[in-house]
């Protein structure tokens, strides 16, 4: 059956999947767009609000700071892991070390552990009397010990660093696969030309990995935009001084605690639009590679 043979029976095969998808994903998304045009507390009748809920996205302090926090998280969830991933993957590739398979298994592990478990584990490690502070005190750095998740100045960064811990495994594995596709001759040639470590990285590895970097950046940025479990569990109620509110948290809080369902829906639609745009980039780039 070569692809392309016309068969009407195809509809029967796709209908079940489309039905569930339409009812429980596509319809809710459209419904969300509709709700976002109302001011609604979820109980009584809503009142038409037009685009007001979208306009306040940029005007309201609480929301602006939530999107601002998301930007900070992008630094930790996306930029830092990509840099770390590039350094680690190219070092590993250059030195042809043993134990690569073991290393890959270990660094990818945080990707499969439930976020709630990750959050609980790090919350204990970062606790005032947790192992991190104990270690700092043990080496005489008492001044550096903090209530990491309880202070306004450190909470968001602490959550961000956990994101770095989670995402670096993804970037390392992605880049290792990418470097594996680069022809060895390119490296040979670079070395014959007398290129050092940095030169080789800049003129061989980096250009060849550009599609992989784009994929990694997009995936990790999307992950940071969607972050909910981590902040919700590590820093309840938006964190100290609401310093760790993020868009996904605002959706939950507004819809189910504050009775601002329309506003929550507007944030959701905006988030979807952002993720769509980013995914379009990744599909283009990844599509070009295959």
């Amino acid at each position, binding site marked *: 059956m070569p*692809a392309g043979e016309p068969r009407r029976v195809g509809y029967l095969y796709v209908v*079940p999947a489309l039905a569930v998808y339409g009812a429980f994903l596509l319809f809710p998304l459209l419904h969300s767009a509709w709700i976002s045009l109302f001011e609604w507390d979820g109980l009584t009748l809503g009142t038409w609000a037009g685009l007001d809920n979208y306009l306040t996205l940029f005007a309201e302090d609480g929301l602006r700071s939530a999107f601002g926090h998301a930007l900070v998280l992008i630094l930790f969830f996306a930029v830092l892991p990509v840099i770390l991933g590039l350094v680690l993957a190219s070092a590993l590739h250059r030195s042809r070390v043993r134990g690569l398979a073991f290393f890959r298994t270990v660094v990818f592990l945080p990707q499969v552990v*439930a976020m709630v478990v990750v959050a*609980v584990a790090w919350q204990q490690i970062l606790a005032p009397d947790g192992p991190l502070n104990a270690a700092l005190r043990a080496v005489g750095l008492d001044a550096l010990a903090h209530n990491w998740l309880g202070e306004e100045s450190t909470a968001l960064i602490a959550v961000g660093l956990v994101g770095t811990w989670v995402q670096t495994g993804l970037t390392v*594995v992605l880049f290792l696969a990418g470097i594996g596709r680069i022809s060895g001759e390119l490296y040979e040639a670079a070395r014959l030309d007398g290129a050092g470590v940095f030169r080789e990285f800049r003129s061989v590895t980096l250009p060849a990995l550009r599609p992989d970097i784009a994929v990694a950046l997009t995936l990790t940025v999307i992950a940071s935009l969607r972050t909910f479990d981590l902040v919700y569990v590590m820093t309840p109620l938006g964190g100290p001084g609401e310093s760790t509110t993020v868009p996904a948290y605002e959706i939950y809080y507004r819809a189910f605690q504050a009775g601002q*369902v329309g506003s929550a829906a507007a944030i959701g639609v905006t988030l979807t639009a952002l993720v769509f745009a980013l995914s379009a980039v990744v599909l283009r780039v990844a599509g070009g590679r295959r």
Partner: protein
Amino acid sequence: MTVSRWERAGTYLVLLLFAGYALYPVLWILFTALRSDTAGQGGWHPENFLTAWTQGRFGDYLGTSLIVAVAVVALSTLLSVLAGYAFGTMRFRGSGALFYLLLLGVTIPSQAVVVPLYFDLRDVGLLDTYAALVLPQVAQSVAFGVFWMRAYFRSSSASVVEAARLDGAGHWQILWRVLLPMGRPAVLTLVVLVFMWTWNEFLLALVMVTDEGLRTAPLGLRFFQGRATTSVPLLAAGSVLVALPVVVLYLFLQRHFIRGMLDGAVKG
């Protein structure tokens, strides 16, 4: 390609440091789970797991999670195979548009649909049921699953299919007797990914369920953590129980996890 011994040693050092960094929280939670409940008391205490299982009700939470995960995996795999088969091997009017419509679902963040889903399911009386935990996750998994299975069916050998057809096999037999047995690796990858996504899902369970009897494992852990009486070793034991099924599966089927998550990367 050779590098100096120093560089190699440096690489090993970085490798070791980074592996330690990646493993530390995992090992810490594992060792803490085995520590005594009373501070200052030494020795190994594997009975923490038993206490978490019964008193922490993790036995119940894991049971709910298992039911939800099995239902989501079975349903979404079946629907994905059927639709992926049609999209990959047949041509019918609108098939391209329908496929892209489904593909759109891969990128819809669950955070964006959880709000309307809550009110829709409330209106039809489905809150606090297994259906509320299962069906939305099937919808999300099917978007990825169809994309994944279609790729497999497109790459499967046309000559095998042609031979089966000459033997008189219809489209139904070709799917179940020929293509699917050959496609076990692709299906297995889909199964482990959907299992992981479902098992680790948190927000949906948080919103859809208030009945304690329907709490999934991650949700149960969150409530266990919120209890004032919970000791750190018991919390750690609960965490291990929640993470264990996926981690064990990962250790055995690592290639499937990595390949699926990199290839099908846009879903999350």
